[in-house]
C-alpha cells in the first residue's frame, strides 16, 4: 500500500485544562473516505479544529503527519497550503468582502506557497465558474459578501464550493449536515461526491448516519470520550443508527 496521506498517532489535546482528545490513532490514504461518528461532546469537532491548527486547543501529546510533513509544526495557513481543507460547521461572515475576492486571495496564497504564479481576476473567474455548478449556485453568489446574510444551506454550499475551488488533498467536513434540510443535504453531498477521486481523501465528521446515505464512506470510526473505540466499514454506521451510542458509552472507562 502507498504511503498514508494522513497519519494521526496517539493524539492528545485539551482546552482550558480539560482533556478532550485522549489518544487518537487514525490513518487515511489517498482516495479514501473516512467517517467519524460520535455523540455530542465526544471530541469530533475538536479533532477537526486541532487538525486545522486552531490555537484554542493545546496538543499535549502525539503526532500528526500529512504527506511527510509534521502538521503540528505548521501554522494554520501552511496546513491549508499543504492541502488540508476544513469545511466549517459554522462558517464565519466577513462583511464587505465578496466571496469571489476572498477565494481569489485564498487561491493565490496557496499558489504562492507552491511557487506558482498568481492568477489574475479574469483567469480566476474562468476557473471558478464551472465549480459553481457543482453546488447549484449562480454567478451572483460570487459578488455577495462572504456568508453575510446567507441561509444555513447557502453557507454549507459555499464551503463545498470553496473546497472545489481549492482542490485540497484532504478535506475535513465538520458536521456539514447540521442544519440542512433534505434538499440542501443532497446538493451538498452531490458536490462532495463529485470531488471524490484517487488523489483526494475525506474525513467526514457527523453525528447522524443520515449524511452517510449520500456520502458513502469506506471506513467508519466511532469516537467516544476522546478515543476511537471501534472502526469498521460503512455497515457500522447503520448499526449505530439502530442501536445508538449507548453500548459504547457504557463501555467507556472500563
Amino acid at each position, binding site marked *: 500500500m502507498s504511503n498514508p496521506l494522513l497519519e494521526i498517532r496517539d493524539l492528545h489535546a485539551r482546552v482550558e485544562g480539560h482533556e478532550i482528545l485522549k489518544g487518537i490513532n487514525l490513518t487515511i490514504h489517498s482516495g479514501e473516505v473516512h467517517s467519524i461518528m460520535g455523540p455530542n461532546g465526544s471530541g469530533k469537532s475538536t479533532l477537526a479544529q486541532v487538525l486545522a491548527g486552531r490555537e484554542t486547543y493545546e496538543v499535549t501529546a502525539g503526532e500528526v503527519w500529512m504527506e511527510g510533513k509534521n502538521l503540528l509544526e505548521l*501554522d494554520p495557513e501552511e496546513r*491549508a497550503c499543504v492541502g488540508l481543507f476544513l469545511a*466549517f460547521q459554522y462558517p*464565519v461572515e*466577513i462583511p*464587505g468582502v465578496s466571496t469571489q475576492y*476572498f477565494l481569489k486571495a485564498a487561491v493565490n496564497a496557496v499558489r504562492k506557497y507552491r511557487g506558482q504564479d498568481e492568477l489574475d481576476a479574469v483567469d480566476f473567474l474562468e476557473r471558478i465558474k464551472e465549480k459553481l455548478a457543482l453546488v447549484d449556485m449562480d454567478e451572483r453568489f460570487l459578488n455577495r459578501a462572504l456568508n453575510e446574510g446567507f441561509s444555513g444551506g447557502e453557507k454549507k454550499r459555499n464551503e463545498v464550493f470553496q473546497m472545489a475551488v481549492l482542490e485540497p488533498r484532504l478535506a475535513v467536513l465538520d458536521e456539514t449536515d447540521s442544519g440542512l434540510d433534505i434538499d440542501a443535504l443532497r446538493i451538498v453531498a452531490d458536490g462532495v461526491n463529485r470531488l471524490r477521486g484517487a488523489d483526494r481523501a475525506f474525513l467526514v465528521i457527523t453525528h447522524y448516519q443520515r449524511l452517510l446515505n449520500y456520502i458513502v464512506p469506506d471506513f467508519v470510526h466511532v469516537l467516544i470520550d476522546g478515543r476511537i473505540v471501534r472502526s469498521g466499514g460503512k455497515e457500522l454506521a447503520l448499526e449505530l443508527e439502530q442501536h445508538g451510542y449507548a453500548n459504547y458509552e457504557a463501555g467507556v472507562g472500563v
Partner: protein
Amino acid sequence: MVSQQEQSLTPTEHDPLQQWSQSEYKYGFYTDIETETVPPGLNEDVIRLISAKKQEPQWLLDWRLKAYHHWLTMTEPQWPNLHYPPIDYQAISYYSAPKIKKQPQSLDEVDPELLRTYEKLGIPLHEREILAGVAVDAVFDSVSVATTFKGKLAEQGIIFCSISEAVHQYPDLVREYLGSVVPYSDNFFATLNSAVFTDGSFVYVPRGVRCPMELSTYFRINAMATGQFERTLIVAEAGSFVSYLEGCTAPMRDENQLHAAVVELLALDDATIKYSTIQNWYPGDKEGKGGIYNFVTKRGKCQGRNSHISWTQVETGSAITWKYPSCILQGDGSVGEFYSVALTNHYQQADTGTKMIHIGRDTSSTIVSKGISAGFGQNTYRGQVKILKAAENARNYTQCDSMLMGEQCGAHTFPYIEVKNSTARMEHEATTSKIGEDQLFYCNQRGISNEDAVNMIVNGFCREVLRELPMEFAVEAQKLLEVSLEGSVG
C-alpha cells in the same frame, strides 16, 4: 513633508511638541536652513506682519484683526474626548517661510524609512521624488503639469489657485465668500485660523460648468509647503459640478505640530461639490511621542435648491484629530453626505464626525462612519443631526460602525439628534465589532496569512466609504490602511 526644515515652534522644556521636533533631528534634516520666521507668539504686530508679507488689502487685515480680538475672548474647547497636554499658543511661531530651501539632491538623501513607506504604497519612483521634495526635474515637471491643467481649466472659466493668489487676482470673489460659511467667530480653532491663515486653495466654478478633472492639491506641491493654518474656499455656482481631492496619498510628514485648517464650501442651485480627503500626517511614534495635532473646521453650505455636498474622508494620520465636516442644508431639496473612515493605531486619538443641519424642505443627509481602533488608539464618533422647524420632510440615515483590534483600544460614539419637525424621518444604526479570532482562523484555514486577513477584513469593513472615493484614490487609501495597521495583529 520631511524635506521642510522650517521650525514653527520654539521648543520649551517638557513640551511634548518639542519631543517631536527632536525626533526629526535624528534624520539630520534640521540643518542650516535659512528661514524667515517671526518670533514665537501671537499679537497684533504678528498679524500685521503676516498680512504685509502677503501684501494683502486693508479689508483682509481688518478681518484678521477682528478675528484675533475675538479669539482673545475665547477658550479652547474642553468637550472633545481627547487628552493632550495644554498647547502654549504663545510658543508657536505663526509665520515661517523658507528663504532658500535646502532640499535633498537625490533620493539617497531621503529618510530610508519614508522611502520604504512610499514603496509599500506603490507610489511610482518619479512621484516619490516629488513627495520627498527632491530638487530635481520632478518638481519642475509638476509645476508644468499644474500650468497645463490651469490653462485647460481657465478655458472653462474655472479658477483654481492658491488663496493668496486669489486675494490679489479675484479680490471681489474672495471678499464676498471668505467667512461666509465658517465666520471668523465660529470656534476657537477656526477663529485662530482666520487671524493667521497663511495659504490654501481657492476654487471657483462658474454657472453650469462641469469641472472636467479632479482638482487636487497634489499638483500644488509648493502650496503644501506653506504653513499649518491653511484656508480653502470652494464656490460652485448654479448647475456646476466639482470634485476636489485634498491631501496627498503619501505620508505627508508635516513638521508642523499644530494644524488648524478651515475649509468652506458653498453650493448654489443644483450645484454639486464632492470633497475627498486622505489625511496621513505624522501620527507620532509607537510610544505616542510626537505627531500632529489636527484641529480642522470643515463646513459646506448647500445654499441653493437641490444642491449637493458630499464629504469623504480617510483619516489615518495625526496624533490627535478633531474635525467634523458638516453640511448646512439650507436650499430646498438639498443633499448632504458624510462618508468617513478614521483609523487610530498606537496612541492616536480621533474625535471626528459630522453635523447635518436641515433647514430647507425635502432635505436629506447620509452619514456613514467607520472607526477602526488598534493598539492604544481611541476613536470617537461625534455627530449631530438637527432638523429645524421649517425642514418639512427631512430625511437622515446614519450608520456608525466601530471595529476594535486588540484589548487596549477604545471606540466611543456620541450621536446627537435634535428634531423640531414631526415630518422628519430618521434612521440610526450603530455596530461595534471586534476582528474576531473566528474570522482570522477562517481566513488562515483557506491559506490566507494573518496580515492579509486583517487587511481584507478592514477593507471590507470600510468598503461603503472607500467606494465613494475616485478610483485611484480608493486604491491608495486601501494601501494606506494596510500600512497604518502593519503589525497591529500578531
